[in-house]
């Protein structure tokens, strides 16, 4: 049992580290180190999109973009373990990749699995290079956890499809050049059977993007409206009616990328507790009243960390990480909310303040408090994740399905 690289891994790590050291945008170091607590903070002063694109292009040109993709589409053909090592070495600069995660992590693999060779040649390299940004258009106002309940209609008209409807929670739609779009092409069959997937140029007429203002006052997501949007049949990904299967390619990748390395916030809490004064002059961490909760959260944070080490070990042996990874988001989501709530209580009446200049520990806990409810919902609610663990890991039965084998148009939509 050890945490050591194999000689091959060590060589790869050294190469990656050297290249990053020589090429990284170090002028962003301090900003990137302070970010990630749910606030835009001082990031506002920097043109993050331009910086992100620049770093991505640099990586692409040197063969460090989309490591696990085949080289012909702009990747490096690296092993999963090499990808992990790269991520570890990229460190804070990985934040510059957030803009591309959905495109490179979910849309790209979907196109790669289901697109025509011509599309792949045309679309994937610019995506790898950070020239194009992609978004994923699946969820709808009435189809969240029940994704297959979506109602955006695609109707065949000659060699084209005409799309009407709307999508929600579309991250990055306002800056995307392309997107993948899941539609209903046949409402007369069971819900999972009448879906079809397309890729779409987001600059097409008939698409309108509107940002969604969220509860914490920021807009990370959009609504996307389709009014007689026309897509050529050649932009179809997979067969007509095969959309659900195609979407699973995307979602398997989503669950992986969202789940991995999500923070419980315990490290922040510990950092706060060793720096902040306690009530009797000592450090806050020495306050006996907080010991038990710190200990509990410490084991959760540590447990997630070493669970991911076990998953990496499995990866390095060529095994696929299982849906056990769902526990990462499940635990981190609820824990980060609990920790934030606890930490603001420790600040007493000052806990209500949100300005980083006024609130303790740069208002990190207040930011997390306001952001964390979303964490427990997006990319699979706590309840869906428990279902996944129960069904896929433990082999328990699915929920009783009243909508199974029912034609979609007959499924009740009102109580």
């Amino acid at each position: 049992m050890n945490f050591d690289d194999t000689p091959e891994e060590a060589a790869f790590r050294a190469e990656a580290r050297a290249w990053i050291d020589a090429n990284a945008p170090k002028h962003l170091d301090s900003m990137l180190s302070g970010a990630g607590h749910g606030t835009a903070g001082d990031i506002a002063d920097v043109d993050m999109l331009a910086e992100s694109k620049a770093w991505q292009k640099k990586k692409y040109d040197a063969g460090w973009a989309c490591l696990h993709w085949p080289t012909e589409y702009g990747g490096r053909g690296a092993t999963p373990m090499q990808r992990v090592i790269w991520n570890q070495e990229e460190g804070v600069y990985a934040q510059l990749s957030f803009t591309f995660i959905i495109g490179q992590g979910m849309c790209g693999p979907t196109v790669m699995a289901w697109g025509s060779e011509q599309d792949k040649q045309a679309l994937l390299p610019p995506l790898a290079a950070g020239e194009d940004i992609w978004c994923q258009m699946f969820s709808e106002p009435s189809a969240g956890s029940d994704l297959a309940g979506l109602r955006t209609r695609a109707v065949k008209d000659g060699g084209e499809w005409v799309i009407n409807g709307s999508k929600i929670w579309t991250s990055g739609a306002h800056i995307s050049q392309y997107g993948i779009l899941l539609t209903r092409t046949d409402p007369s069959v069971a819900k999972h059977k009448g879906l079809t997937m397309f890729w779409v140029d987001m600059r097409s007429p008939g698409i309108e993007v509107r940002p969604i203002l969220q509860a914490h006052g920021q807009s990370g997501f959009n609504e996307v409206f389709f009014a007689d949007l026309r897509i050529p049949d050649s932009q179809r990904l997979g067969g007509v009616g095969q959309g659900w299967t195609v979407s699973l390619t995307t979602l398997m990748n989503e669950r992986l990328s969202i789940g991995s390395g999500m923070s419980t916030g315990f490290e922040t809490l510990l950092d706060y507790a060793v720096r902040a004064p306690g009530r009797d002059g000592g450090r806050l961490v020495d306050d006996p009243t907080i010991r038990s909760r710190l200990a509990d959260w410490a084991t959760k944070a540590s447990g997630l960390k070493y669970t991911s080490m076990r998953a990496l070990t499995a990866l390095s042996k060529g095994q696929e990480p299982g849906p056990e990874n769902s526990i990462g988001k499940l635990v981190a989501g609820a824990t980060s909310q609990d920790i934030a709530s606890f930490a603001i209580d420790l600040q007493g009446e000052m806990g209500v303040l949100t300005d980083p200049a006024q609130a303790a520990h740069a208002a990190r806990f207040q930011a997390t408090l306001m952001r964390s409810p979303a964490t427990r919902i997006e990319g699979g609610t706590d309840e869906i994740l428990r279902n996944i663990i129960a069904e896929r890991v433990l082999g328990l039965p699915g929920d009783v399905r009243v909508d199974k084998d029912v034609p979609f148009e007959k499924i009740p939509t009102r109580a």
Partner: protein
Amino acid sequence: MQFDFNEQQNEFRQEARRFLAAECSTERVRKALEGGGFDRSLWQGVAEMGFLGIAIPEEHGGLGLGYLELCAVAEEFGRAIAPLPILSSVYLAAEAIKSFGTGEQQAAWLPKIAAGAAIGCLASSEGERLSDKSVRTAFVNGMLSGTKTPVLDGDIADVAIVLAKDADALSLFLLDLSQEGVTRKTLNTIDPTRGQAELTFNNAAAERLGERGEGWASLQTLLDRAAVLVAFEQIGGADRALEMGRDYALERMAFGRQIGSFQAIKHMLADMYVSATLARSNAYYGAWALSTGAAELPRAAATARVSATNAFRHCAKNNIQVHGGMGFTWQMDCHLFYRRSNQLALALGSLPDWEEKLVTRLAAVNEPLAA
């Protein structure tokens, strides 16, 4: 046994509910949230209904009713998550002046507070969890100097009750905020519908409120009473959050069924009901102690406070979860309750302080027989 509000009190509550349903919709709460500032016309409306002077004697312009009526109305203000300084002005400032003030001080301020013409606030915190050792603001030669932060509603208040050093002791002081020696800085807060400010006093004229050296003890009394009233705001908010979640679970369909038919959602709502019910019962206990002047008040107040704080947070948080992604949009009202649940959890001192008070008070009652 009549461990409930009586008909007259319930009628009074209904009146408040009707008024607030008509005049204090969440659209109006949002105005405050979205930078509309203090809703003075709503405040005036509330004052005209008499709600600000419920427990203020008639001779000082109030209705001269009891605390039970005030509790009943507080619940409605909580339910409406009213963007108003009622906590500061009514539960704290008016109570302080009524309890510790001279006849002159009462005559000077209570009628104005009851009429909504003046807003009071409590300036005690100095930027850390408060203790009787940590106060730095000092009273010298009739003048107060120091900085109080955060002060709830300090951005709009006209008069402050200030805890300050009085030579070697602590006293409460009454300070007119309209004078020159007062500087205000508005602070950003998780619940902008109830403003926070930093108040700096630079030789600001102030008069003692109550006896010299009684500041800390008086503050505790004041906080205990306010804790009961705030507990009613909290249970009102918790109930409404629970109702919102329940209604959404009945209305929202997924997988061809109401989401409220999934046990994960059903049981989450059942647990919300349980915590809201326990908190309500504890709040009633607090109301009984407050209204009868019972010796149990310190214990009952801490019980009500801890219970209601946990319940409102629990209900507000899980109401968002029941709503799923929609629950985290700005347009849905869920976050208004989430914000308020946290604001109220931190006002009057946060949970750890009240947990400590509660256990200390319980332990004092339950003396060991064998000791």
